[in-house]
């Protein structure tokens, strides 16, 4: 049986009449990167807060690193977290802010310089937090989350405010942590980034889990598409007609015919087009992106 970093069953949080999270059930295996996605207000931060013992669930159960979420003191020393963006004391320097947290958690003060170096803030560690840019604040938040050398790292929108190279650095950092056995549970709106690194996904919509499982499983469930471009635009309708005659739904977008079909049907189409006197300039197989799948699934839910 796979050991789980996070496991929740029927987790629910109700504020008055409104359910911020409703009967959420999902698992996050140890040592993986799990993306936590959903539109704003879908319940991601509420879930993270419950996992960290900051708010009490209205119903359901859960465990983190094998311990019940009702006893966060048992697992939090092994968890690093950045929730809803970084929050530090503005009048203290970045290094001093980390020292406060290191004292609180009983971590070696030597970790502070090491982590500032790791997140690229070694030169600015002595500057007051209030003088930091958004990207620098974000980096300090990541450094704080890494203080305990965590077994589980929970990051809420860690790339907010970062420039492209910063985003790449965070992606590489998460990858290297996961390679060393750390489980990373990361919520992000940058679905392209998550698609690149997340082995599994938990998708929320209106406080409900609409998908929880392997990223590949989610993406492969989407019907594959062949994108076909004839040499001459006038042949586009004829290509579509060939595909439709063989039972493949086709949509014309721009200069290309988008044919719902398996990739191995491409040679058959190429032959049929050649026999009809049509030269195909290109045939490519397109796998739907996580972003497309996300919009697809969340719009299905709305319907």
């Amino acid at each position, binding site marked *: 049986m796979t050991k789980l970093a996070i496991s929740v069953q029927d987790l629910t949080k109700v504020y008055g009449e409104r359910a911020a999270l409703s009967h959420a059930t999902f698992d996050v295996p140890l040592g993986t990167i799990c993306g936590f996605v959903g539109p704003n207000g879908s319940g991601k931060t509420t879930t993270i807060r419950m996992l*960290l*013992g*900051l708010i*009490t669930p209205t119903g359901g159960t859960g465990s983190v690193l094998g311990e019940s979420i009702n006893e966060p003191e048992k697992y939090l020393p092994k968890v690093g977290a950045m929730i809803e963006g970084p*929050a*530090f*004391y503005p009048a203290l320097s970045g290094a001093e802010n980390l020292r406060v947290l290191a004292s*609180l958690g*009983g971590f070696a003060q030597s970790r502070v310089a090491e982590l500032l170096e790791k997140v690229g803030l070694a030169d600015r560690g002595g500057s007051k937090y209030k003088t930091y840019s958004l990207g620098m604040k974000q980096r300090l938040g990541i450094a704080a989350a890494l203080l*305990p050398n965590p077994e589980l790292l929970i990051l809420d929108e860690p790339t907010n405010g970062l420039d492209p190279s910063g985003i790449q650095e965070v992606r590489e950092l998460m990858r290297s942590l996961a390679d060393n056995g750390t489980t990373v549970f990361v919520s992000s709106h940058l679905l392209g980034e998550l698609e690149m690194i997340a082995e599994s996904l938990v998708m929320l919509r209106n406080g409900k889990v609409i998908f929880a499982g392997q990223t590949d499983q989610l993406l492969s469930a989407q019907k594959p598409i062949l994108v076909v471009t004839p040499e001459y635009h006038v042949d586009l309708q004829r290509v579509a007609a060939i595909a439709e005659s063989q039972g493949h739904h086709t949509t014309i977008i721009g200069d290309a015919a988008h044919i719902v079909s398996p990739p191995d049907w491409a040679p058959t189409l190429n032959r049929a087009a050649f026999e009809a006197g049509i030269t195909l300039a290109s045939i490519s197989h397109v796998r739907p992106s996580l972003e497309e799948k996300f919009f697809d699934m969340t719009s299905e839910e709305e319907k």
Partner: protein
Amino acid sequence: MFRVFLAESRKLRRPTLAISTLLTVSGLSALFTSIVFLRLNSGRPNTKRGQIITAAELSNAHGMVYGFKLVAFFLGITALCVFASQTAQEYTHGTLRNLLVRQPSRMKILFGKFAAMTLFALVMVTWTGAVSILTSYLLAGKGHVDTSLWSSGAGFHYLAQTTINILLATIGFGALGMILGLLFRSPITSIAVGVLWSLILETILGAALSSTQPWLPGQNIANIAEGGGTQGVSYMHSIWLSLIYLGVGLAIVSTLFKRRDVAN
């Protein structure tokens, strides 16, 4: 709890807070003590409520701590502001969630912070006392005050007793500030309410309805600093009443703090 104490101490010793607070209370201490000694023998009021204290009275064993006692109420108000802001800012900065992730026991957070702020109050009171006593010695000659009894056994007894009483009162006002900080979760609101209540509302209430004076929390905490006797209220009455007020207040806010969701 010791880790919370260490973490909180790091925040409290930042120069902008520690130095500015110590400079402010030093200034007040030196000012109040100077007025007492420099106006001696002038016939003009030289102490609180427009009263006059003479060189003969200051030459007694308790003369050394007279100026120190005058600044006690302001030490209390300063502690109220520091305790309130240090507590409430965890909500306004959103840093409470960081604290709770690193130390999930909310009671340890609360008591660790209180212990660190109590140490801060101790340093502030000791420093203020030292400044006042130094000023008293420096100006005693100018006011023809005989200081020989100040360094007697009775003088040191008064010094110890006054320091303890002022420290207790300062911690009491600080605890009041912490209660308000936890209740309002905003430094500005909690300080405004605390200062308005202690400085203005209690004074008006006490003046309008003198029967309320023995029961007002701020007046009773201030009476501890005086060593009792203000408006005929005994020291022990003030000690017990302050303990009841602060105990009930702390019990209510710590229950709220323990149970309340941290959603910001």
